[in-house]
């Protein structure tokens, strides 16, 4: 499917928002969360630029699954490191092992269900962390109400990830053309929710 001018504009806006977030950083974040957030928004920025330059065909590349895992993993790591001090080490180990597991199951020529299971498990944990942590923190008064927007972004990234993963697995929820039509808007909404959430936290 050919990329339209509107798609390009939406992706450019996504890239600019992500670039802005990388440049201003997150208030009060220490070194590790700052690196994690920079990686997450950096991948969003580069992904937006590559989609503009190479078009939707770039999504066919097997590297996309690996690279797109980096966004939820690094974002959730930043959130856990900042807000759940007791789970820092455990979650860091989960992120490293999870990423390596996805990398291995994607690079090795496995023909069973293992690659999808590993992807679903790692994505699921990271996505739920991004979705639930900000909302729970907001509801319990441990963060400002605006922080809940990060959870909204988490829900959107989950929807996008699910649509793309099922499409690649050959069991799409929506047609390929519908998914590609909504993808740029979804990416922009998701990035805007993250940026607004961190700004209002």
């Amino acid at each position: 499917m050919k990329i339209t001018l509107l798609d390009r504009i939406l992706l450019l806006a996504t890239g600019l928002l992500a670039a802005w977030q990388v440049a201003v950083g997150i208030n009060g974040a220490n070194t590790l969360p700052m690196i994690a957030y920079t990686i997450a928004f950096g991948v969003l920025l580069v992904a937006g630029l590559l989609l503009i330059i190479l078009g939707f065909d770039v999504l066919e590349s097997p590297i996309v699954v690996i690279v797109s895992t980096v966004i939820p993993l690094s974002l959730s790591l930043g959130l856990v490191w900042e807000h759940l001090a007791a789970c820092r080490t455990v979650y860091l180990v989960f992120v490293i092992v999870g990423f390596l597991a996805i990398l291995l199951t994607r690079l090795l020529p496995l023909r069973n269900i293992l690659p999808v299971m590993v992807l679903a498990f790692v994505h699921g944990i990271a996505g739920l962390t991004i979705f639930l942590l900000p909302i729970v923190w907001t509801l319990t008064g441990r963060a400002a109400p605006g922080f809940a927007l990060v959870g909204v972004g988490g829900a959107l990234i989950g929807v996008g990830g699910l649509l793309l993963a099922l499409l690649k697995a050959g069991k799409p929820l929506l047609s390929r053309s519908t998914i590609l039509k909504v993808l740029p808007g979804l990416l922009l909404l998701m990035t805007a929710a993250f940026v607004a959430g961190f700004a209002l936290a």
Partner: protein
Amino acid sequence: MHNLQSAIRNLQSKIRLYWPLTKSLQTGLLLSTGLAGYMSARCPVMHWYDFLGLAVSLFLAIAGSTIINMWYDRDIDASMKRTCDRPLASGQVSPTEALRLGLVLSLLGVGMAVVMSPLYGLVVFAGLFFDVVIYTLWLKRRTCWSIVWGGISGGMPILAGRVFGLGHVDGIGILLALAVLFWIPTHILTFSMRYHEDYQAAKIPTFPSIYGFLATRTTIAISSVLAALSIAIAGVLIGMEWGFVRLLAVLSAGLLLLAVASVFRPTERVNFGLFKYASLYMLSAMILLSI
């Protein structure tokens, strides 16, 4: 009144013909490096007339040398599918007219630069000399290594801008020029792979035709690493804010990702994607250096 209208129409049609001779995108990108070099000097007081003078003199010199280059290479352009419609190759502009235009613009650009600052003028002249004499007239048709000299001349605008801002040549200026020199292969070699057959038909030695595609892609990947490192080190030495350093690192990672992908999973799409991304990367890096 009628004569005036006709003169204006005539001028408009000339500008429409002359503009493509300047390769406006390439000239614009090189001009942006020159302006970034000047801004990177963090002049305590920046006068708009200095900035304007720098922009005009660099534009004239870069556009002039590009036109002379196009004048000399008109036979190559005429033999290549991609370039045979250019005004000189297609006969819309006569060679004498183009040569005169190129010389006038070059002289005006270098002359203006010398008046503004002799050292700045010298660097601008060096860039023009490397591009026209060493690269275009001497080496382009003899060796694929001519791109090194093309790269050196490409690094001169950013050095010139910094020299104009500081009043002297410094290590950061050299580093910035090196960054452009290392970036040039990413820009030119991806292009020479895309139009490999055209260049072969025109008998122009290129890296892909002499050393093959794999070696060319590896060269691009290595030079991308070196370009990104040079810009990052220069950025840190200039005192760029950490937020911008982070952003530069992210954009550099994208460049490296594409360069590595072009080595291990080479496709035409990735190759041309790298070409486009490299231009965007350089423009973004220049904006970040200028802020």
